Each structure stands twice: as C-alpha cells, then as structure tokens.
C-alpha cells in the first residue's frame, strides 16, 4: 500500500467515528478498528521490501521553494515504530470499547484517537523534516484533546494544558533546531541530512541545533527536567495513557533521537547532555514511582524512568547502546501497555486506583493478576521475560560507559535505577494483588470480560515469547538497528541471549532484584520517611511560572494596549518621533536642492483655515457636534489642497470619504452625549498637549525637509509612470497601481474592509440580541425633535438625484483606468447615493426595496476580484496577472477591455457592500419603540389614496 495512504487513512477515517456515533458504541469502535486494521495491513504489505533492506519512498513536491515537500519514507526504524503505533493502536481500540462507559462520547474519543494515530504515523514515516514538524505539532494538539477528553475533570483539563504547554514549547524549540539543521545540510530531506554527518558535526551551529532539537525530544519524551507533565497527563482515560504515554507519543522524542542518531550522536556534547539527562530521569523516575500510591501515577513515573533508560542508551553513542535501546523500546511498549491496561481493569472493577485500598486481588481477579504480574516482573527484569534481556543489555552498556571521566558513575546509577525499578514492580504486584482479601473495596472486583483482558493478554504473550525465545526478535531488532545506525556504525554481532555467563551485568542485575525485594520488606518505614521529606511539587512550580508569565504579559500589554485610542496614538507618535530624531542625528542630511516657492493668496487662506479649524477642534472638542463640523472643514480643505497640488484622484476620494465619515459619526453620535465630560487631570492634559505639539512640529519639519530635497534613491514612481500604460494598459497611474501593480495588496485590503464591515454587523446584532435591546428601544430623545421624519422636499430631491449619482458613479468607474476615478471612488459615490434614500425615506422603506443583502454584495465583490485573479491561472500565469486589449464594435470607437476593470468591479462591490453594511448596522441600533416603521416614502404623500391616520380629521359623529 502506498505510504501516502497509510498516513492518510487515520486522518480520513477520523471523520467516521463521529458519524457512526448514533449507530452505537460497537459500530463506532468497529469502524475505528477497521480503519486502523486497514492501515496496519497496508504497512505489512511493505514488510518484504523493508526486510530486503530497501527504503520505500513516496513523494510529491509541495512547496519546493521552502524546501517543504510531502516525502515519506519507510525503512526499518520507521517500520518498527509504525508497527508499534498501529499494532498497539488496534489493541487499545478494542480495549477502549470496553473501558469507556455509556456516558462517554465514543465517537469523539475515537476521532481524536485516529487523528493522533495519523499524526504519529506521519512523524515516523516523514522524510522531510518540515513535514515531520507539522505532524509533531499535530500530535501535541491531538494529545491535548485526548488528555482533556474528560472535560468535566479539572485534573484532566489542567493536565492537558500542562502537556500542551510543555510539549508545545519543546516543539517551538525544535522548529528552530530543525531549520538550523536543514540550513547546515542544505536540504530538509532526512535522506540527504543523514548523509552529511561530518558536515553537520563540523558546523559551528551544530551545538545550538543539537540543544534545540534535544529540547523538543526531551519535552516530548518527558526527560528531566521536563518529566513533570507526564504524570499529570494521567488524568486521561486509561486507554489514552496506555497508548500515548507508554507506547507511542512519549516515544516520539526517542524516535527522533534515534532517527537523527547517525548525524547528531557521538560528539562529546551529545554524550554529555543525552546520557546525563537519561540517567537522572531514570533514577529520579524510579525513586518517585516507588512512593506513588496511585497505580497510574506509579506507572507514569516508571514510564518516565524507562524513557530515561532508553535515552541514556542512545546517549552513549555506541552501536551496542543503540541496539539495546531499540530492543528496550520494543519490550517497554509491550509490557508497559499491558500494565496500563491492567491498571485500567483494576480501576474499572474496584473503582479505585489507590494502591493503599487494594490488595488480595489475586483471588478475585486471577486473569488480571496473571497478566499484570508477568508484565510487572518483566519490567523488574526477571529472567525468561523480555524486560530482563534488554535490562541486561543496558547494564552491560552502562558498565562500559564513562561519564564525566568517571568509570563507576554510570554503572552505579544504572544499578540504583534498576533497584528502585525492581522495587516498584514488586510493590505493584504485592500491594495490589497479594496479601489477604479485603472487605472494604469501593466495589467488589472480579475479572472483566474477554474484550478487556484479551488486548493486554496478547501483549503479555509477546513478553513471554520474546523472553523465552529471544532469537525470534533478534533479526528484527538487528534490522531496525541497522537502519537506525545508517552509515554511522556497524550492527554489533552480539546475540541476544538469556545466559551470558557470569558477567558484571548479571551481578548488577542480581543486586538490583535482591535490593528491590529488600526494599519491599522495609517499605513502610521508607514510605513514612519519604512522606516527611519536603519535595518540590512540579505542578505548583509550573502554575507559578505560568501565572508569573501571564502577569508579566499583562503588565506589558495593559500598559501599551489598554483599549484607549489616545494611548495608542501617543505611543505611535512618541515612537515615530524618537525614530525620526534618531535618523536625523545619525544619518547624513543633504543640503536643500529645491527653491522655496512664493505662497499665493489662496494657499495662505487655505492654510489659515486649516489652522483655524484645527485650533477650533482643540478648543471646542468637548462639544462633539461642533468638533464634527470642524472636522468637515478640515476634510474639505484637504480635498481642495489635493486639487491645488494637482491630485484630483485624491481629492475625489477624500471628499467622498469625508461625506461617508460624517454620516457614520452622526449615526454614532446619536447614542453619545453631546458633550465630552472633563475626565483627565491638568497634568495629564499638559502631557498630552506636549506630545501632540511635538508630533505636529515633527511632521511639519519632516514635510519641510522633504519638500526642499530630492529623493535619496530613485523613487518607484518613475517605474510606475513608465510602465503604467505599457504593462497595465492604463494611463491613470494611481488606478493601475491599485488594480495591477499592487493588485494583491488591494485584494487583501478589500478582504480586510469586508471583514471589518461584517464585524460591525456582528457586533450590532449581538447588541440587539442582548439586554441592551430593551434600553435601546425605550430611549427617549434628550432634546425636542422636529415633527417631520421624512420631509417631502428631501424625498423628491434625493429621488431625482439618484439616477444622476448612479450614472456619475458608473462613468467614474468605467473611465477609472485611464483618468481619475476607479472602483473605490465609484463605490463611495454609489453608497452615498443609496444612503441619501435611507436618510430621506427611512430605514424600513429603503430596506424593503433592496433586493440584495449587503453581505452578498461584499461576498460577490471579493469573489469577483478573486476569480479575476485566478483567471490567470488558466493561462499558466501567476495570480492576478492582468491583460488588456482593444476592440472595436461598429459604430462605436475603438475601446479598451482590461481584466483590471473586472478586478476593479470586485473592489467597487466590496466597497459598496462594506460601507452600506456598516451604516445600516449602526442605524439598526437606532430603532425606537415609539417610532413605528412607516410604509410610505414621505410623511405627506400626495399620491396616497387616504390621508395618513395621524392627519385624518375626525369625522363628525352621526346622530
């Protein structure tokens, strides 16, 4: 089966469990099982090729420019992990069917599980490291969903958040490390990277890359000091713990270390960091595990410890260590998943996981006892079980490992770790299953149905099989080791045997088991001692760090971003001033190259009015309406200034925007008090005035400076002027820039504009749904109002002028490409034309006569612009490539047809829709209960058959 399909199957299949949910729990589990089985079988079809030592690859180029390609590869190592993921996945699915209760949403669970499975398979089959990173993040996200699956449990939510934070941050570090690695190797494909061991290790960036990648691996695989998230993630349902936290996800970090082993390992840095982290994790995890009372916590810390063991083996950097690591990954996956499932069975049956409340279960649950004991003994390293074999290999490797110049450090630590490991295994068996039967279980336990014990039983069969007959697994382990080592090492020819003779490893093993038994004898006083020693609590520290980070972020954010516009304006002005001042004193300032021009009377008058209007705003700004009128003057004078400086385009735009702004602000002012109260202190106003004056003087100085000098570099306007007609087919450079040269920007801008308009709409709709609605409806006007709502004169005038406005808009739109105008101005003109109708005849009358909702107009605009851009794809040109031609239809003159005009139509529609939707939303708020909507265009309508009921003269009563 194609590798694509193997990776895609779980993702595609993730859609099914949710759909199957109503069909019942068995159907849901069944469909999930089938999907996984299909992927599993698909994987097995590639087995012959892998056994032949071939590397199966599938690939397509996705974004070659970025080096991001969807290339998958399957070699021994990938096959091994994929086998674990899909094989144990099958057992977990069968187990989860029995484990989850009727209250749990099974479809949701299996959807998450399949998403996770797909992401995991993606990691181990990725050839491209960027693709691998994508899957890596997906595992973090899907595991977040799985850990937090029981949303009602606070521990579940907190554990999920902690896991996401830690692994997410590690993932972030890893992105950096992978990018550096790709830069060094010159390729993001693993098959290329793995060939460049010398190049990568010689690079000065090797150490940063190594540390960043290891951060990712250590967080994912719960290595010290990031081990703390794993026990908290145990709040997840047991199938999740068994799957994610023993067999698969926590092995992702290990997998990546193994995958990159050929290029990263062997250096002193690697040995020091990886071995040390692994060793500490192994011992620390084992010690903590011994004193945990919750079965799952015990297993969680034992997982931490075993992951440390594997990490340490990879850290030694020898071929034998790598082989031992591979073998232990296999063994750990089998016995640990079985142990988690057994713990789940105990929890399910006895309704508690507290080891202090258990004991004597061997009589009540013989099958579970057998399964759990075999798995735990294997973990303890008892001969004839698979854990013994890999533990022997580990001790053998530790015996030869020198760390920090010491020959005894690693062997002693490894023995101590094994000792505690044996001790907690014995405790797991002894305190749960052995001892007298108690009469105070929360629920009387008995063995569950075969559906629940069969999956762990299958795993334990493997445990025993490999333990008794290691030669069965040996070829496979060596195959995987060979692909792990790549060209960096030879597969050791040592055989995996039960009996090696009287070697140091055997003595260490004996010490560990004997010590473990001894420790069980003195467990009670030891436990009391442990309870009375103060220990740092990881969760408290983590929460404190998170809270500190949140507080720090809040301090920074609230001082800059407190929701007050004046604050932003001040920050912006001060920053720009500082930057400008810096540029001024450090840069070279050229001499003036242009002559001062004499000011004319008109210019002076315009300037004086601008100054007067601005000063007026400063002094009268508390009267909001007056401030608005004065702003109208500023707008008007700016429009005139644009005309004066020969920019009619800008003048038209400015003028129409002014009109729309005034209408919008008046609509808003309707809900605001007429005067702004004095709220700021004198000192504060003084400060604001200083900033404002400095900003004004600064921009004046800048304008003065640039008006007297030529541009330092050739401005781009030369290019635009030269190419506007040649390339864009238009003589109006402004319009050609908008729809052609910078068409993509414009496309983005109309989308932003549309989103803003839709947001305004959404916000007002939310307001109208809430408690505000009643207050809005029952407002009473704060001043006497005129009696005419829709005066006839205004109605007639706006109706008469409407077609004229539309025609002018049409004209401005059409000729926009060659002369001042275009879709934007035309859109504003048409909007004003429509708003006039709203003002004259009222909201409901106008709204009833509009066929198309403004949302639709906006959407049509964006779509028209987008499709115009996409049209160029059919001619194999980039997005938004424009073209134009001239046609002549008799009897008309020759005229131009340009695709840019179609794009401009999109702009036009988006502008009309956005402006109208925002105005309409605002005016929607102003409906009042005492003002019924009128069906008539004006108050006194001569064409009305009957006079308005309000105006009807009372008929004389008949006697």
């Amino acid at each position: 089966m194609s590798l694509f399909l193997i990776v895609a199957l779980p993702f595609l299949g993730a859609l099914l469990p949710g759909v199957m949910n109503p069909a019942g729990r068995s159907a849901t589990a069944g469909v999930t099982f089938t999907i996984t089985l299909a992927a599993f079988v698909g994987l097995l079809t590639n087995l012959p090729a892998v056994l032949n030592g071939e590397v199966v690859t599938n690939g397509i180029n996705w974004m070659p420019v970025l080096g991001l390609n969807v290339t998958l590869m399957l070699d021994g190592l990938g096959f091994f992990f994929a086998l674990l993921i899909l094989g144990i996945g099958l057992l977990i699915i069968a187990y989860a069917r029995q484990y989850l209760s009727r209250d749990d949403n099974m479809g949701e669970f299996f959807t998450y599980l399949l998403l996770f499975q797909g992401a995991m398979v993606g990691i181990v089959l990725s050839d491209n490291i960027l693709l691998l990173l994508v899957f890596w993040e997906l595992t973090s996200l899907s595991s977040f969903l799985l850990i937090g699956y029981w949303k009602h449990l606070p521990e579940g939510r907190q554990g999920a958040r902690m896991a996401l934070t830690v692994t997410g941050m590690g993932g972030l570090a890893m992105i950096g490390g992978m990018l550096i690695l790709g830069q060094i190797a010159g390729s993001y494909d693993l098959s290329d990277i793995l060939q460049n061991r010398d190049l990568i290790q010689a690079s000065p960036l090797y150490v940063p890359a190594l540390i960043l990648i290891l951060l990712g691996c250590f967080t994912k695989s719960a290595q010290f000091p990031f081990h703390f998230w794993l026990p908290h993630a145990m709040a997840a349902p047991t199938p999740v713990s068994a799957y994610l936290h023993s067999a698969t996800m926590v092995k992702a970090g290990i997998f990546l270390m193994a995958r990159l082993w050929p290029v990263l390992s062997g250096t002193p840095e690697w040995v020091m960091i990886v071995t040390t982290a692994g060793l500490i994790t192994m011992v620390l995890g084992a010690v903590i595990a011994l004193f945990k009372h919750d079965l799952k916590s015990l297993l969680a810390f034992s997982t931490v410890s075993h992951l440390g063991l594997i990490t340490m083996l990879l850290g030694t950097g020898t071929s034998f260590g790598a082989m031992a690591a591979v073998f232990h990954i296999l063994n750990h996956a089998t016995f640990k998943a079985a142990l988690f499932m057994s713990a789940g069975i105990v929890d399910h049956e006895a309704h508690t996981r507290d080891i202090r409340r258990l004991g004597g279960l061997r009589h009540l649950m013989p099958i579970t006892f057998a399964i759990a004991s075999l798995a735990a003994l294997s973990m303890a390293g008892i001969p004839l079980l698979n854990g013994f074999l890999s533990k022997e290999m580990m001790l053998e490797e530790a015996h030869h490992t020198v760390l920090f110049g010491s020959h005894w450090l690693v062997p002693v630590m490894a023995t101590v770790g094994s000792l505690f490991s044996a001790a907690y295994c014995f405790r797991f068996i002894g305190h749960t299953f052995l001892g007298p039967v108690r009469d105070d279980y929360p629920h009387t336990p008995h063995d569950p149905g075969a559906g629940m014990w069969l999956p762990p039983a299958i795993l334990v069969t493997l445990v025993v099989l490999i333990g008794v007959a290691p030669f069965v697994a040996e070829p496979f382990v060596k195959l995987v080791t060979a692909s792990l080592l790549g060209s960096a090492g030879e597969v050791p020819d040592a055989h995996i045997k039960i009996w090696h003779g009287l070697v140091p490893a055997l003595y260490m093993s004996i010490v560990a088991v004997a010590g473990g038994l001894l420790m069980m004898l003195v467990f009670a006083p030891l436990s009391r001692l442990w309870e009375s020693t103060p220990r740092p609590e990881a969760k408290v520290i983590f929460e404190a760090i998170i809270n500190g980070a949140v507080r720090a972020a809040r301090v920074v954010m609230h001082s800059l971003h407190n929701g007050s516009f004046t604050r932003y304006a001040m920050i912006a002005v001060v920053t720009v001033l500082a930057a400008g001042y810096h540029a001024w004193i450090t840069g070279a300032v050229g001499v003036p190259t242009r002559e001062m021009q004499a000011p004319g009377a008109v210019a002076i008058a315009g300037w004086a009015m601008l100054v007067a209007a601005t000063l007026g705003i400063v002094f009268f700004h508390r009267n909001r309406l007056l401030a608005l009128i004065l702003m109208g003057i500023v707008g008007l004078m700016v429009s005139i200034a644009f005309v004066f400086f020969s920019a009619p385009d800008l003048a038209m735009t400015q003028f129409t925007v002014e009109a729309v702004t005034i209408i919008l602000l008046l609509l808003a002012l309707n809900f605001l008090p007429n005067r702004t109260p004095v709220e700021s202190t004198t000192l504060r106003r003084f400060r604001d005035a200083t900033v404002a004056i400095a900003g004004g003087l600064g921009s004046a100085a800048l304008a003065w400076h640039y008006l007297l000098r030529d541009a330092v570099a050739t401005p781009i306007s030369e290019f635009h002027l030269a190419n506007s007609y040649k390339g864009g087919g238009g003589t109006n450079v402004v319009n050609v820039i908008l729809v052609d040269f910078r068409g993509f920007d414009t496309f983005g801008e109309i989308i932003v504009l549309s989103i803003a308009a839709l947001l305004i709409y959404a916000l007002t709709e939310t307001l109208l749904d809430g408690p505000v609605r009643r207050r809005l409806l029952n407002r009473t006007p704060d001043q006497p109002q005129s009696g005419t709502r829709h005066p006839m004169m205004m109605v007639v005038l706006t109706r008469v002028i409407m077609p004229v406005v539309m025609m002018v808009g049409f004209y401005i739109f059409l000729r926009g490409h060659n002369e001042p105008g275009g879709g934007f101005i035309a859109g504003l003109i048409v909007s004003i034309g429509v708003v006039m109708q709203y003002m004259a005849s009222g909201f409901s009358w106008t709204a009833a006569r509009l066929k198309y909702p403004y949302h639709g107009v906006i959407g049509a605009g964006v779509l028209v612009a987008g499709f115009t851009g996409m049209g160029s794809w059919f001619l194999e040109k980039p997005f938004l490539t424009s073209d134009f031609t001239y046609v002549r239809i008799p009897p008309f003159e020759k005229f131009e047809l340009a695709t840019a005009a179609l794009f401009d139509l999109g702009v036009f529609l988006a502008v009309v829709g956005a402006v109208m939707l925002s105005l309409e939303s605002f005016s929607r708020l102003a409906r009042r209960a005492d003002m019924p909507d009128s069906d008539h265009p004006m108050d006194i309508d001569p064409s009305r058959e009957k006079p308005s009921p309000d105006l009807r003269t009372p008929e004389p009563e008949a006697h």
Partner: protein
Amino acid sequence: MTHAAGLLDIALSIALVTLALGQIMSMVRLMIGPTTGDRILALDTMVINALGLVVVLGIQQGVKVYFEVTLLIAMLGFVSTVALARFILRGDIIE
C-alpha cells in the same frame, strides 16, 4: 500675451481672492455660531465656495478634470449638510 488673456488672469486672481475671503468669513461665522444651525449653514457655504475655488483653479491651470471634482462636490456636498441638519432636527439621521 493678449489683452483678453491678461484680463482673464486678473479676473481669476480677483475671483480667487474673493472666494478665499468668503471662505474665511464663513469660517468666522462657523466659529462664533451662535447656534448649531448657523454653523451648519457656514459649512454648507464653505462647500459652495470650495466649488468656486476648484472651478477657478481649473480655469487657471487649464485642467479639465477639476470640473469633475466640482461635479462630485456639487452632487454630494449637500449630503453632509443634510445629515447634520437631520441630526439636529431628529437626532437620528436614518429612521
């Protein structure tokens, strides 16, 4: 330069100065008020004066497109005035 052109230049200059003066006077009216109605009227007068200014500038600089700017101002300039007037009369400009 012909006398006619010279005369036109003089006329245009006078017109410009007159219109500018008119603008400034409207501005004064706008500032002193006293009622909001006066101020809105002043703004409307300023729009009309601006029309004149653009037309005269267009004649002076010989640019045709200015007349289209005046077209827009003439066609839409009253909308702001109407909106402001409706605001003081009814509070709600679209009802």
